[in-house]
């Protein structure tokens, strides 16, 4: 049976009719054309599909679109500023070569942002544990960890600056 789901995606209200079994990731990719969110597995292990739902990171292959009804969803497409300025975490991934093929990257960045939101100054150990749900086959994690540490610092700097203003 089709059902109607409505949510805010990257700040824009959307409403679509979907099959009830439609996963959030399928909804984002196929219905909304937001193909930045990737599908890397079918067992919720790889984290390529991580998005933010009401500010928390979620594997969007593990959630039905209908469950996100009424929620605010942010995907990788919605992370940079409207003028195209990269989010500090995106910028840190670029600066530290924290990506190669780019397939795990959207999920990795979204997880990292949530990690740092929860723990603003993570240690290397905490970053590694925090990213345990995201598999990368290219980078060996070395530069991802560096990027997340740097991104955390930049995010904090940004927050502090904003608070001071």
């Amino acid at each position: 049976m089709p059902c109607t789901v409505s949510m805010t995606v990257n700040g824009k209200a959307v409403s679509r009719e979907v099959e009830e079994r439609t996963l959030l990731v399928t909804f984002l990719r196929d219905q909304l054309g937001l193909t930045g969110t990737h599908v890397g597995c079918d067992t919720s292990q790889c984290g390529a599909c991580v998005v933010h739902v009401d500010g928390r990171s979620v594997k969007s292959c593990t959630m039905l679109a209908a469950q996100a009804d009424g929620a605010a969803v942010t995907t990788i497409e919605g992370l940079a500023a409207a003028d195209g300025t990269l989010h500090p975490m995106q910028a840190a991934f670029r600066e530290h070569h924290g990506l190669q093929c780019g397939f795990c990257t959207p999920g990795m960045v979204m997880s990292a942002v949530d990690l740092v939101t929860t723990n603003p100054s993570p240690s290397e150990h905490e970053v590694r544990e925090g990213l345990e749900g995201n598999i990368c086959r290219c980078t060996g994690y070395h530069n991802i960890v560096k990027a997340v540490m740097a991104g955390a610092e930049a995010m904090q700097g940004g927050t502090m600056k904003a608070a001071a203003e």
Partner: protein
Amino acid sequence: MANPNGIGASVRRREDARFLTGRGTYTDDINRPGQTHAVFVRSPYAHARITGIDAAEAMQAPGVIAVLTGADMEADKVGSLPCGWQIHSKDGSPMKEPPHFPIARDRTRYVGDAIAVVIAETREQAKDAAELVMVDYEELPAAVTSLKALEGGAPLVHDDVGGNVCFDWHLGDAAAVDAAFAQAAHVAKLDLVNQRLVPNAMEPRAALGEYDRATGEHTLTTTSQNPHVIRLLMGAFVLGIPEHKLRVVAPDVGGGFGSKIFHYGEEAVVTWAAKKVGRPVKWTAERSESFLTDAHGRDHVSHAELAMDRDGNFLALRVSTIANMGAYLSTFAPSIPTYLYATLLAGQYKTPAIYAEVKAVFTNTVPVDAYRGAGRPEACYLIERLVEVAAAETGIDKAELRRRNFVPASAMPYQTPVALQYDTGDFAKNLDIALPLVDYDGFAARRGESARRGKLRGIGFATYIEACGIAPSNVAGALGARAGLYESAEVRFHPTGSVTVFTGSHSHGQGHETTFAQLVSERFGVPIENVEIVHGDTSKIPFGMGTYGSRSLAVGGSAIVKAMDKVERKAKKIAAHMLEAAEADIEVKDGRFVVAGTDKALTIGDIALQAYVPHNFPLDELEPGLDEQAFYDPKNFTYPNGCHVCEVEIDPDTGVVQVVSFAAVDDFGRVINPLIVEGQVHGGLVQGIGQALYENCVYDEDSGQLITGSYMDYCMPRADDVPSFTVRYHEDQPCTHNPLGVKGCGEAGTIGASAAVMNAVVHALSEYGVTHLDMPATPERVWQAIRRHTPAQAAE
């Protein structure tokens, strides 16, 4: 002033902007008007006769457009997936090459073999309907492991391949080896398994077929490392589509590691079906389907013996390997356990005599082919484990034993006894850098400190060499390659001075859009933002062989250099004309074309404009335009080499191995972008560590069911499983035969790491008398090894 975006600069990657903002375009991201979706019905049996397929109910399901089978393909005269390399057995007979149809016809030979394809309006509808396709199977006994497949009376995977032996091949001088063994003061022996792995690029394979009725042109968009190779194989051998009517596009590809080199049946099916149903057909693998159908890697069972004299000098090496090919020959499968493996068995050592035998075996498992390193990690692992055993048995320090046997830098170029000629390498230097880097002398103290905490500590080395930059076509051809292995490039200057470079290499994470642009920026002083790198589309690029075997920069980059040489020659002519000077007097300095001894100079931009606005060109001497193409075929392989050192700590109560430090010292020749090179090393190391400690592809030995068919069963290394790395390289030994002096860096990490980790693990366990452990060194295996070797009284 040095070009900030030239050679040697850690230029931040230009491709990152799209990947970081979700604007990459991977195959599954592409949707076409009228697109349909394909889902495959796959064999649940490792070996069975297909006695009937009833698609009537599936055809009635909502949204279903077609259900197609092997019989439909046969009726359309679709051919077998070709193998690109032919090996001959010891007796001179060619390898057995049974047909490999995109959809099985009468027999299924591995779990996951395609039986039918359902095409429907949506992916979900196709999936639902695939469940309704009724296939009658007559299950047959399966030959699952290579050893069991070789046993007398084993089920035959192919009726006409007796004993399941694809080929029985050898390399080297058996008599010289026997003579050396007869003289040996000591022989170290080792039986080892190089376990089967699943490559697991994060992007699952996908393919989108399209057919344009108006032009008769087919387009295949696919997750490939080499679109022209796919076009050639699929067009000429499988579907019979002439190349001018077949376009193959490999857009952004989410990792390959070898698994996306090969021509897979699904590519042919969607291309064929798109014409049949008159609409685009897209297929995207689910991860469990990738586990079942992507070509796997490794899967060797080997026995090795090393003969030494009294002083530990290596006299001879004897190796016997059984290599699992799986059910059919994948595109380059036969070359992996032969010319990419046995030829590397000299390693970094001057072992004067080597003999290797390789028996390749068919089994009822998915085909096995190249996976990062492809043959070379297997060779390195075997040699370096054996050297470590030899060191332990002779009591010679393992670093010293290696040093004693290194081919000295002064002996380069060095002809090995197994066909290759190393051009450069200073192996002692790598070791000299590594030893202080890891504080080798301080190891005993660190081991003592670990012991005080109840932990076992070990240190392990791997000194590797690999043959990369694959390959000279004439050599590859002589060894059985059915393709050339050059690379192509076109450097096109536009009238306003910007440049488009078309390369036959393919980037699926390696950063070509940055590194290749650095080459152009360095050469002509063009700002890097004015250089565009185009790859992955047979309708745009010249015929290229693609990316694998760490060949992109060494072969593809060299092709770009060759094309730039041609551009420069032409530009000099134009400059001479413009500056009214003799061509011989034009010099190129910092990207400017200068009349020697004068201040008269032009930039390449000035020249490009003139090339396209040739108002007063002497047309009989000078053609308009500035657009040159080149094909580069290397003279030799390149030989990256290095020294990896790993230190592990093991908890004897749980068997958990922790990699506490890992240092890699590498010689990649000249380095264009250090940031990217280091990233390649990091990634390679974790794939090697993954093999050593975590990954293992397991089929049930009787039923042939894939036990490790998901990320819940197949252990991928994760961020908290590995440490940060110490990576060093030196540029003192540039490759002598390519214009950039580069050797390649893509596979090095994977080649060295498994051996270094396992040597460290065995060293840590040596106090229990453990002398060898097969990979992966899981907690259970380590714990069992400790228990097995613990004296009964101590255990009580």
